[in-house]
């Protein structure tokens, strides 16, 4: 599995829990939780793709973490447009980007054989 694929899967995986965390930070959103989880998962997959590509290109922990936090925050910010929640979405989104960035740099992928 290549880094971008790994990061997309991880972003989607954490996105599920990121969406579910709305039950704690904004319990009144319970009726909308399915849409929140779907949107958060999609956001995690997109963020994972970008972060995974950066990790693959740079192999740099500092750059990938910075890009991870920024992308996570930015995509989360896009979600908040028209919503009363800003930090409730942006901060957890940044955390997802941070973890995906860290894991993507650490992930070594499959062993490759040389002819």
């Amino acid at each position, binding site marked *: 599995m290549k880094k971008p694929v790994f990061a997309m899967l991880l972003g989607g995986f*954490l996105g599920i829990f990121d969406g579910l*965390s709305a039950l704690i930070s904004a319990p009144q959103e319970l009726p909308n939780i399915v849409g929140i989880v779907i949107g958060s998962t999609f956001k995690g997959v997109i963020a994972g793709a970008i972060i995974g590509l950066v990790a693959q290109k740079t192999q740099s922990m500092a750059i990938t973490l910075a890009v991870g936090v920024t992308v996570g925050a930015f995509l989360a910010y896009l979600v908040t447009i028209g919503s009363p929640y800003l930090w*409730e979405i942006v901060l*957890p989104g940044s955390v997802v980007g941070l973890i995906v960035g860290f*894991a993507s740099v650490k992930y070594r992928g499959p062993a490759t054989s040389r002819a």
Partner: protein
Amino acid sequence: MNWISDRAIDRLRDAAAWPELDDRYTITGVAGHGGMGTVYVARDQVLDREVAVKVLDVTDHQGSRAARLTREAHILARLDHPGIVPVHDAGVLPDGRAFYVMKLVRGRRLDDVLVGAAPQAVRLDLFARVLDAVGFAHAHGVVHRDLKPENIMAGAFGEVFVMDWGVAQDGAADVEPAVVGTPGFMPPEQAGAREVDARADVFALGVVLAQLMDNEPSPALAAIAAKAQHADPAARYQTVEQLAADVARFRNQDPVSAYRESVLERSLRIYRRYELPILLLVAYVVMRFVLLVAVGV
């Protein structure tokens, strides 16, 4: 005056005892000695490659031992598998000794691998290849009957060869029940000269597996080896494929059929299998908790 050392004399004596093959093969050394004969290293002049030549020690080419050697060559010729040494040629030397020519296998015997520091995962990988080769032989009606680490060669690139098919049982009825094999690796029915089937090899493979395990193996792996070595053939794995499937399940950190794990063991196994996503999820939950407590979002 220069004297020839005793060692040099021994070498000359050994060289003088080397068999004379036809022009095609030139003996260049001795690879090893077995119960039936000697395996020589030779050069195939036609194909310009090194080969191994197994030569019977006795000259009676119509005797039972010659028949056994010839049968071994026929079995090997029939079993076309990457884990079984291919035979190139067979015949009788001018002095009456039967021989056959096979691929020269370079590597270490499995018992030498056991002495080394190969991790259990590597040893189990080799074992899985042995299972594949033996399972292939069983599918062709051949029971090895003398499986042990000394009869398994491991190459430098992870390839494995199951060797020494001299006492193999070819089909169900072609061999009279007799005590053949190696004590410690024979199941009770084989040691008692009763009829054996593929489950005799399952028993021997269980012994081999027990030797391949770490000093403190996991209960699941120990249970697999114990089930394979059960004294009652009906209580063993009935086929090598079943044994291989359980070993594969163990290697994949799945539950094995030979062992019923506790809730704690199951939890630990699942944790080891999904360690990375679990740790990442825990990291997220911790950071999310910190956000909730510190920032209130």
